């Protein structure tokens, strides 16, 4: 039902003071699930994803006045979500004084410990393979493989050229294949 309401209609509601809260509520309901899944794939743990998603939508609320119509609002929210997730991972490393490998190992172990991960062994192995990738490369892989996003859109979100994205994705695929073969 939410999908029937267009972004332009939602923005129109938000632009008016009397309907701003209602319009923003519609926006959250429309994009909460895809944004949550995007963030969850990056940070793995549900509690962390929950915190980040809340921060994302609060940031959207605070900066909705600065949103320019030159891009779609979903692209804009998505970009905020990706940046927040990357900042979160960076801060987590700094806070725990963990090295790159240690954090990835921790996330990899959480796949087994997390009560909210139902994947079978194949899935766990695949997710562990994804965790060997650098954060940005992993995000690009997620967007391209799981969300089947076109390179043009990924380029808009990440600010990277399409050629670089294709190369990054190709390298990511090779790394994952190599990991799965070895394990």
């Amino acid at each position, binding site marked *: 039902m939410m999908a029937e309401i267009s972004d332009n209609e939602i923005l129109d509601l938000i632009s008016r003071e009397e309907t701003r*809260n209602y319009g*923003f*509520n519609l926006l*959250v*309901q429309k994009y*909460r*699930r895809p944004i*949550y*899944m995007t963030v*969850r*794939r990056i940070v793995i743990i*549900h509690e962390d994803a*929950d915190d980040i*998603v*809340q921060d994302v*939508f*609060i940031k959207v*609320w*605070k900066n909705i*006045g600065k949103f320019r119509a030159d891009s779609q609002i979903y692209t804009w929210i998505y970009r905020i979500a990706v940046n927040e997730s990357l900042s979160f991972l960076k801060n987590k490393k700094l806070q725990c004084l963990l090295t790159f490998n240690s954090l990835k190992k921790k996330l990899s172990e959480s796949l087994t410990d997390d*009560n*909210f*991960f*139902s*994947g*079978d062994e*194949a*899935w*766990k192995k*695949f*997710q562990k393979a994804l965790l060997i990738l650098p954060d940005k490369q992993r995000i690009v892989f997620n967007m391209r*493989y*799981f969300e089947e996003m076109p390179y043009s859109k990924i380029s808009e979100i990440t600010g990277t050229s399409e050629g670089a994205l*294709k*190369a990054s994705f*190709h390298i990511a*695929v090779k790394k*994952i*294949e190599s990991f799965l073969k070895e394990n």
Partner: protein
Amino acid sequence: MKEKDKISFNKELKEVPEVRFPDCLKNTNPFIVPDNYFEGLSDTVMKRCGSDKKVTLIVSLKAYLNKHTVAVLYLTGIVVLAISSVFVFKGIIINREPTSSLASNQIRNNQMIPLINDTIQKSDTSSFYSPGQEDQIQFNADISTDDIINYLDNDVEADSFYNDL
């Protein structure tokens, strides 16, 4: 990356199929979401946004101030630079004036040589014309500089001047 490697890499990019992983990995979601999580999420976000209403305004005002403060600072800097450069140039001009007036006085003194008293050291004529030697020139106390200048301005012949004395 070497040129040969670049070419082969780009070729590989075009030839390799998009992804070779099983579709089941793409179509299933291993991440479990707690029951009623998304409904609760909307309420939580709206409550936090409502409580941050005042914060929103403060942030906006702060952003506004910062944006304009920078502009004001730039303008102030430019104005200060302009004023200081005016003073610097003025200082240069002021410093030059005595030198130029000194030079003109020197020329006048040289023109008044014939009317100067016997106390002038005629043996060393070069001293009249060299800069810094004006202290050797001594004027007759009875005749003031203005008198001499007035005499020159009126274009009176030297003989009549001496006749008046």
